């Protein structure tokens, strides 16, 4: 069961990341990787809310495996985040690389922790 929902979640999350990236990147002209930034923040927020919901509502384990490990895991990416940051460094955009790293981590962690806290309070 767990294996199946992880596979299904991954099948949903990965193309969602790609579509979101294409959509976000088509909306601006800068080199900053807003597409990856956006999916990573949204996925972190959703995972924070889901983790809190599982704790508060006593949801079955497959919910976290499906939404967390599957959908959010595949929606977000660390490899592309790292690659795009190194690409910015290689192009000499040290500030943009630093901004991408710090903002992704601070906003991503904040979204996850904030989503967890709000969901814990409401549920």
């Amino acid at each position, binding site marked *: 069961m767990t294996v199946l929902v992880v*596979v299904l979640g*991954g099948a949903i999350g990965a193309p969602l*990341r790609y*579509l979101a990236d*294409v959509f976000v990147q088509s909306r601006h002209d800068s080199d900053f990787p807003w597409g990856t930034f956006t999916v990573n923040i949204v996925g*972190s927020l959703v995972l924070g809310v889901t983790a809190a919901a599982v704790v508060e509502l006593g949801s079955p384990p497959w919910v976290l495996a499906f939404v967390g*490990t599957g959908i959010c895991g595949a929606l977000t*990416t660390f490899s592309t*985040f790292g*690659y795009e940051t190194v690409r910015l460094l290689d192009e000499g955009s040290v500030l943009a690389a630093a901004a991408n790293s710090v903002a992704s981590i601070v906003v991503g962690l904040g979204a996850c922790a904030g989503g967890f806290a709000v969901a814990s309070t409401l549920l």
Partner: protein
Amino acid sequence: MENDEKRPRGPLHADVLAVISAGGSLGSLGRWGVGELLPWSGTTFPWATFVVNVSGALALGVLMVFVLEVWRPHRYVRPFVGIGVLGGWTTFSTYALEARDLLAAGRPATAFAYVGGSLVAGLVAVWLGILAARLLVPSSHQEVPW
């Protein structure tokens, strides 16, 4: 939205999405498997996610050199391996949740080591992957940057 001319249409074909989806399934399954092999207590360093994220970053560095500088690969290679498998293999959301959990568990030092260590190791891994791949390919193919 559907009529937006700025939106690239080429990459939005259903077959490419299906290939990404299949890759995402495989990568996610692998990441879940590593998590089963290296279970996390909630208070210690999250090695499973660290391992998938750093190894995925290394692999993407290698792949991108081959895709951009060496081959003219089949059009499914980058969507399947880069966006699907490696995107599904690595994760940012679990990285964030584990850091949150470590902070909530009163382990700020471990959280800091995990967050900073993953970032530094991930960036070095991409760079090493690129260097290693370039060492393996003829210099005449090293013209195309990124």
